[in-house]
């Protein structure tokens, strides 16, 4: 039984970078933004990660009151089709091991203190990456008294990745674009 499950996976080979559900000729997908090629993005990202972070870029996910949509996409990034780790990026369990924070959610008042504490536990210099509309500016619930308008109200945000939720490929694209930006390079090189 055990072998049976392994055999199929081995025969199938790595799924990384493959299309999960390829469309047949002539079938038009529902209208949406252009899809960036995950492989190209990932390879470019790997080059940047090697240059800026010596090949290992570790991030800590921090849920600041998200709806779980962004979390699902981050989990998908770790799944077999994207396999984030092969580009030198990984999500780690403790902020003390992280080069940066991936913050989702608008920062609810209830989580404000926890967000601050997590940030304090992250060694400097660190990147703060806002994932999703809520973390960028409060998103759909920005008008609520129970939330802050994004993580920017508490912490200096280096990278914003809009989307509700941003698709896995969009997260990769945004990370890549961000690593090319001056401010992030300064952060990565060691901001005082």
């Amino acid at each position, binding site marked *: 039984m055990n072998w049976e499950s392994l055999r199929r996976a081995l025969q199938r080979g790595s799924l990384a970078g493959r299309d999960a559900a390829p469309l047949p000729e002539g079938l038009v997908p529902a209208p949406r933004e252009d899809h960036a090629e995950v492989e190209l993005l990932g390879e470019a990202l790997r080059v940047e990660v090697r240059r800026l972070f010596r090949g290992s870029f570790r991030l800590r*996910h921090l849920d600041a*009151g998200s709806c779980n949509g*962004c979390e699902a996409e981050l989990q998908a990034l770790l799944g077999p089709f994207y396999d984030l780790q092969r580009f030198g990026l990984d999500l780690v369990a403790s902020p003390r091991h992280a080069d940066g924070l991936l913050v989702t959610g608008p920062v609810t008042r209830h989580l404000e203190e926890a967000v601050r504490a997590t940030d304090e536990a992250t060694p400097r210099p660190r990147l703060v990456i806002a994932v999703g509309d809520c973390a960028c500016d409060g998103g*759909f619930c920005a008008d609520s008294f129970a939330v802050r308008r994004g993580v920017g109200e508490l912490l200096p945000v280096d990278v914003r990745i809009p989307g509700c939720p941003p698709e896995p490929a969009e997260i990769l694209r945004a990370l890549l674009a961000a690593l090319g930006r001056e401010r992030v390079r300064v952060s990565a090189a060691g901001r005082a």
Partner: protein
Amino acid sequence: MNADASGDLFPLDRALRGIRERFADAVIDAERTSLREHTVVVPAARLAEVAGAVVREWGGALLTLFALDERDPHGRFRLHALFSMAPEDAILTLVAALPEHAPEYPSLTPAVPAAHWLEREAQDLLGVTPLGHPDPRPVIAHAGWPRGMHPLRRDFVPPEGTSWAPRFSCIPVEGEGVFEIPVGPIHAGVIEPGHFRISSVGETMLQLEVRLGWAWRGLEKLAEGASLTRGLALAERLCGTCALAHALAFCQAAEELAGAVVPPRARALRSLAAELERAASHLGDLAGILNDVAWVTGAAEFTRLQEIVRRASGQLFGHRFLRGVCVPGGVQRDLDDAQQLWLRRVLGELRADVPRALRAATGDASVIDRVAGTGALGGEIARGLGVTGVAARASGLSVDGRRDHPYAFYRDLDFQVVRREAGDVRARLELRADEIHESLNLIDQMILRLPGGPLAQHLGELPPGRWGIGVVESPRGLHVHWLRAGARGEIADWRVRSASHAIWPALALAVHGNIVPDFPLINRSFGLCYACTDK
């Protein structure tokens, strides 16, 4: 929930008759408020008594309980307690008025344990006090809240610059060798925020306290005075992974309110999308459970299948989590013949791979050792706490909103309500695989019998003061939305009870006597949402 021995298929009539006979002096008013809802107004002092009888004697199951601020102009608060009268597609609502200046009532919880968190939540959000509640601590209002802050009151003014940092008390367990293990709200994985306080002796857990409310975004308040479009956007973002179920429940409430009839093609597409969501969610839970028992190949396999469903959802409906599919009055997306054919082919792969991956996992002693007998939830406890969905069916209860309160296209479809008796992690694991099979069958049926016609019916003005109810079987259980229109056709009140809200208290009981390392596994096997519990 349980038809009585005489085979009475109309428990609502029986309950109404019973209330009229037994509580003749208590009934202030009784009327039929929609096709399926009957409303009985009773004095607040008698509410607990009547509710207890509805549950104990006439087979009612508490769907939700909430309070409304009607001080202007009626000078009162009102409590609504909604009971499902399954197998009849009927809802019995008990309504009680509480005086403006002393909003108190005898607690329902001693007679109806399912009201436990609901009463505490109403106390936090509206300041109505359940007298004699066995555990009246706040659930959403962590102790950092300013005293007397009740956000869902109409005259609520948000405080400025207050520290809302949660402070709360846990029930202490004392004795030699008892340890307290705090977990969260920030967890090690990519998970939502919740605080768990485990009291253990050695490896054995004596007590688990679940403290949620961290992701409370005040969405019900945000909907006050909003348009339906805005309300739908809020509903879809209550929860990322059961977005469609919430959207559907919201739309159904709006449609019942406006008296709209959804065209057949829209109903079928709604059901189809709902089953896609269920399949994706169940696959994620299967992957999560196997990951927690370190069965990595199985976890990867189910993650792969989940991504296929998500991707197909995105390709066909334009959103991986199916937002924007369902709108009040119908749907916004259509599937043409080629798309239907392709979907069947994609899902055909799942049909073979899901049971194969599950067989491989459950055929291994190391998996069975972890899941069999772990985190068992008894059927009686589940029933008492109003647990629905996978958690209830894995504990032997025959409850399914798709059958008990048919919506969308389910009245016209053949499907099994699959059950397991053991109530342990293994039961929830295997049940989900069976339910994916049923979902695939349902999608096939819908594609084969997809009716023609328009995609949506225009919803007119919302009649002021009327309300509507939406009940949807989400991947986790029953989502209940209650919507009332204001004077200008805007949303006046919106109350949501997500399935997870009912199941969290049951989780606290299911871990009793298990070992600490099994807590994450048991938690994952229930697969509950934090965000839509907190709202």
